[in-house]
């Protein structure tokens, strides 16, 4: 059982042109910024919109097939056996939790039947209810079966929605940011529940998200979608550990720069700035090849410029901060653009620069810098990892 989608969709200026492949029992995380085309991709797979060109196959059976000559196959959504679970639970408000879950089994008569499913008769109302109760039990909510959606919390509603999607026994499940509308704690619970349920259901699953935790917990493979194209795909350790693009780097919490490798482990950025790497670049690129370098924001050291320090009240700490990496790192000037809260202190971004730095509040106070301050930055080579730039076209399947 394999889901293959190769789709081109146009909406105004935006073009989605992407191909994914997911096997049964596998979960693919489609990561991308807002407007990258993730939800459009899911809608086209579910048959909710017609692509300009492309195909959707499940297990070799064409559900969508559109080419220059026009559409030749366009199976309606209800005959696709492809489930969809969105950010909002969208439980039918007039039905109880149990009836919501039983909806899929009761509707099954109208589905395209294939393989073993062909032998399943349409469930009677009683049968559908008893099956629905099992599914509700799987998500820990059999005690609330009689409740209407309005009487359930957001997390409970999403659990019912998961049970409802799985109870329809789809071949493939599409998840569109299913945790985005929940608070952090509930999201974590629902995420673990999904992992457990997906493992049990043995489906081809695509989860669209811009939360890296969703990808780490739920996905076997990761694909990065940006501006309608898949930039990178593969194992999470590769795509997020050695990111090929800024979005993946940002998800992994890393700064990413690209440049050419020079002697002595110096990476020359397009604007001429040098960034040193402490490690050898593996595999070794040919001379002049582009390399990608990533480093955490904590590896970026802020040193107050003398002009700014004139008014500062800080002690010798600030001066010390300038020296430790000074033997190798090459400092360069920057202007502080914004200070934002970060997990371990303050995140500092700079005007006209993609590099972000992170330091503790104490360090920042000691430096005496604020928004608009001119500083100089040095990047600790020990934390810079470099690798040959990946080809921008991710190849999947």
């Amino acid at each position, binding site marked *: 059982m394999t889901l293959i989608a190769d789709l081109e969709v146009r909406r105004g200026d935006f073009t989605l042109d992407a191909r994914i492949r997911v096997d049964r029992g596998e979960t693919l995380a489609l990561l991308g910024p807002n407007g990258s085309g993730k939800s459009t991709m899911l809608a086209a797979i579910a048959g909710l919109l017609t692509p300009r060109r492309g195909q959707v196959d499940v297990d070799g059976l064409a559900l969508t097939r559109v080419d220059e000559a026009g559409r030749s196959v366009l199976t*309606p959504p*209800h005959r696709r056996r492809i489930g969809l679970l969105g950010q909002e639970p969208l439980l039918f408000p007039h039905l109880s939790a149990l009836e919501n879950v039983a909806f899929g089994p009761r*509707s099954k008569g*109208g589905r395209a039947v294939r393989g073993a499913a062909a032998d399943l008769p349409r469930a009677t109302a009683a049968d559908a209810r008893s099956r629905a109760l099992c599914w509700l039990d799987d998500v820990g909510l059999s005690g609330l079966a009689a409740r209407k959606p309005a009487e359930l919390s957001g997390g409970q509603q999403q659990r019912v929605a998961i049970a409802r999607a799985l109870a*329809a026994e789809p071949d493939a499940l599409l998840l569109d940011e299913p945790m985005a509308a929940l608070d952090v704690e509930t999201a974590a619970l629902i995420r673990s529940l999904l992992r457990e349920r997906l493992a049990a259901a043995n489906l081809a699953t695509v989860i669209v998200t811009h939360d890296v935790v969703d990808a780490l917990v739920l996905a076997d493979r990761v694909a990065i979608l940006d501006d309608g194209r898949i930039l990178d795909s593969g194992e999470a350790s590769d795509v997020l550990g050695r990111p090929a693009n800024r979005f993946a780097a940002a998800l992994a919490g890393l700064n990413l720069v690209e440049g050419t490798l020079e002697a002595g482990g110096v990476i020359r950025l397009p604007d001429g700035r040098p960034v040193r790497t402490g490690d050898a670049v593996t595999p070794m690129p040919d001379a002049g090849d582009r390399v990608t370098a990533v480093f955490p924001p904590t590896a970026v050291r802020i040193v107050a410029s003398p002009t700014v320090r004139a008014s500062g009240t800080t002690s010798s700490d600030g001066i010390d901060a300038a020296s430790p990496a000074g033997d190798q790192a090459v400092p360069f000037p920057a202007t502080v653009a914004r200070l934002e809260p970060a997990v371990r202190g303050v995140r500092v971004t700079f005007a006209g620069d993609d590099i972000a730095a992170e330091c503790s509040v104490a360090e920042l106070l000691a430096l005496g810098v604020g928004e608009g301050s001119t500083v100089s930055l040095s990047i600790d080579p020990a934390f810079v990892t470099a690798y040959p730039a990946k080809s921008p076209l991710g190849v999947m399947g």
Partner: protein
Amino acid sequence: MRDGTGIPRLFYLPAAVAFALLVLPIVGLLVRADWPRVPAAIVSAEALSALGLSLQTAVTATVLCVIVGVPLALVIARSGPRISGLLRALSTLPLVMPPLVGGIALLYLLGRNGLVGGVLDLAFGIRIPFTTAAVVIAQSFVALPFLVISVEGALRTAGTRFETVAATLGASRWTVFRRITLPLILPGVVAGTVLCFARALGEFGATALFAGNAAGITRTMPLAIYTAFNGAGVSQDSAIALSLLLIVVAVVILLLLRSWRTEPERRP
């Protein structure tokens, strides 16, 4: 009492005027009524015949409106913006059109020399004007827009998101309509049906022109009231009594709707 968040005090005066305008005429009617003679007027053969015809035609017209109006509302609500705008404007035309004009229009469409009426007469010998069927058609013509507007509004409020989910769960279009769309818009359908029925029950202008005023065939309550009031051998008291009867019927319907609405959906 809330303070600080209420409505501007200035509004109480126009609100009182509006309320008086709506309620005082009915009070006037109640005061003017010759109460001792009301029961006799109501149970008179003529009154009962008019009431029977009114209920029969209004119910028939309402059923017709629901059968064709709900699908029309669906088509309007689910069409693209341009088509739905055009369809909505044309469908609600009878709302802004004087009913008398509607009656004339129906006469020219379905009359013996009309566009469709001519064909019906020649081919099948069917003549619609001045029959009970004409009453039903006239009532449907003026009442249908109320149902369509109400149902279409409910459809727009309900949106298509639940329908999409239902489809991905394997439900066919018909199943989606029956188990999701219809229950979601049911309050709108009921409200539209009641409005539609009330409008059909009170219909006068189009009926008078297109169906005429034949006792027992096309003389519905409003026509009977008009006839009595103009003093065709009967006193105005009879007109008042019939008016009261019509008001009572309308109030009973409103109360039925209220009780249906305030009872929350708690079917097991």
